């Protein structure tokens, strides 16, 4: 199993991988001429730790192994980083990435992921659904007697969808402790900052009130990310990790900007960004 074989993840190595993935994600978004760099970069360190820090148990050569851990990107617009991670993990090849957001894409690398792409569990594109789907998977693997864990990355704006809180109640009811939600709390949505769109705070209190095991970390501190992901499961509560992140993290002129939610960089901006991603 690729992921789990990295038993002693080296923090510096993971940070290097994250940088490499940001460059790759930006490259494919630039090539496609459209995409979502901001939300890809805020989630990069979290996904790097999950896939390459020995957290997720997966085998890219056997993507349907029923005993695998599952990863769901509920904020599906961050597909630029998702496909970059899937390529690095070996589900698809790096040359497949050339067809990102292009017609006749052999690996179906759509703007939002779909299970036709190896490594993808469910379609995304409509916010609010991933936590419920992840919970269904968590219940299904328990029924089968496996100890699979299910990790779902949620956007912060996505928490404005009511269905997230329906799922939060359900996971509590069924004591689904093998479900781990990670909130990519980058504070910025599409047309506004999250706080002004509809404030999520007090966010920890909300999850606590729904009876989840709540943790809060700096979502760009690899050591902190690894530490929280390595915690043993709570005996009965589902877990939420609120990761404070920065939209567009790594490229100074993108950081914290709504403008970089859903646009590809110009050639000039692309070159400028690459100089920072070293």
């Amino acid at each position, binding site marked *: 199993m690729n992921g789990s074989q990295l038993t002693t993840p080296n923090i510096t190595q993971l940070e290097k991988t994250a940088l490499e993935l940001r460059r790759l994600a930006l490259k494919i978004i630039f090539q496609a001429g459209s995409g979502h760099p901001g939300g890809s970069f805020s989630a990069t360190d979290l996904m790097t730790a999950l896939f390459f820090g020995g957290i997720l148990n997966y085998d890219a050569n056997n993507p349907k192994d029923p005993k695998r851990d599952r990863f769901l990107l509920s904020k599906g617009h961050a597909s630029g980083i998702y496909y970059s991670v899937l390529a690095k993990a070996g589900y698809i090849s790096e040359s497949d990435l050339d067809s990102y957001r292009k017609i006749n894409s052999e690996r179906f690398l759509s703007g939002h992921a779909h299970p036709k792409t190896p490594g993808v569990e469910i*379609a995304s594109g409509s916010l609010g*659904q991933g936590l419920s*789907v992840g919970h269904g998977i968590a*219940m299904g693997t328990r029924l*089968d007697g496996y100890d699979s864990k299910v990790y779902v990355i949620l956007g912060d704006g996505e928490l404005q969808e009511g*269905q997230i809180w329906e799922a939060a109640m359900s996971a509590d009811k069924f004591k689904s402790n093998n479900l781990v939600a990670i909130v990519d709390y980058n504070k910025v949505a599409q047309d506004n900052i999250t706080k002004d769109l509809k404030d999520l705070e007090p966010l920890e209190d909300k999850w606590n009130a729904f009876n989840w095991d709540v943790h809060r970390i700096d979502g760009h501190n690899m050591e902190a990310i690894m530490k929280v992901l390595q915690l043993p499961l709570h005996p009965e509560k589902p877990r939420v990790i609120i990761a404070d992140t920065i939209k567009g993290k790594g490229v100074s002129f993108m950081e914290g900007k709504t403008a970089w939610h859903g646009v590809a960089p110009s050639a000039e901006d692309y070159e400028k960004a690459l100089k920072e991603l070293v």
Partner: protein
Amino acid sequence: MKDGPTRDAYGQALVELGADDPRIVVLDAGVSDSSRSKKFGDKYPERFFNMGIAEADMVCTAAGLATTGKIAFATGFSCFLLGRSMDQILVSIAYSNTNVKLVGTHTGLAVGEDGPSAQMIVDMAYMRAMPNMIVIQPADWEETVQATRALIDYEGPAYFRLGRPKVKAIFDSSYKFEIGKGRVVKKGSDLVIFATGIMVQESLVAMEMLEKENINVTLVNISTLKPIDRELVIEMATSHKAVITAEDHNYIGGLGDAVGEVLLDAQISKSFKRIAVRDQFAETGTGPELFEKYGLSANHIAQAVKDSLRPA
């Protein structure tokens, strides 16, 4: 031959089929006593998930379960099961092509006194419009039991439309349900009625009335609304002078449209009447009262037959 509500037959069938197939899981949205999924829950509590009054969460949870190899029956009142979760069904079930069976009970004006917000008359339109989705509405107990079994063998998303009131037996155990196949219930001449669900029973009542006037028409049960039995529709329409469709649903997007599309595509021009709700919300009242007032009763079907056969 057994009379009874199709929702009861579904609940019973699940219990029987669940014994041999551990892949079957059932979800409900807090109406399991009425939808009859509770029977399964009582027998197999570890495979029954009552998700509370949260249909959107339920259908996505069902999709997640399906990705782990389960056959997930997400059950609820059709109005809310579909109405509250169209986007979730589109993305996590239809587009993702997950093996989820959406089972909507309490459909049509037959629901009665709970009023228009509980009388689902747009569900077949909703579901027929979705790629990857098949749509099945059984006519009686026997067909419901067999269709439930067929849905287990069929891998992919499906909508199963069930009813609240008791319906009379149409089929005996010699009947063989097949997804995508219609069935001639009674052979007559001159005119063919394509009916679905409770309207098969209603049409038979109309036909008894007509027989007293020596009018003998053909009745075809269309239980698979999508994919519709194109061959049978063409064969029957071609061999009769006139066509009537009968459904407890709005006249837009349901059986009438499904049959009409086949006839148009095949360039078959016939007298064509749709017995259906005429694009309006009904009101409270008993099912039979509503059928009479809103044009779905046996009287209306018989009248439509006579109008169709009257020389121009």
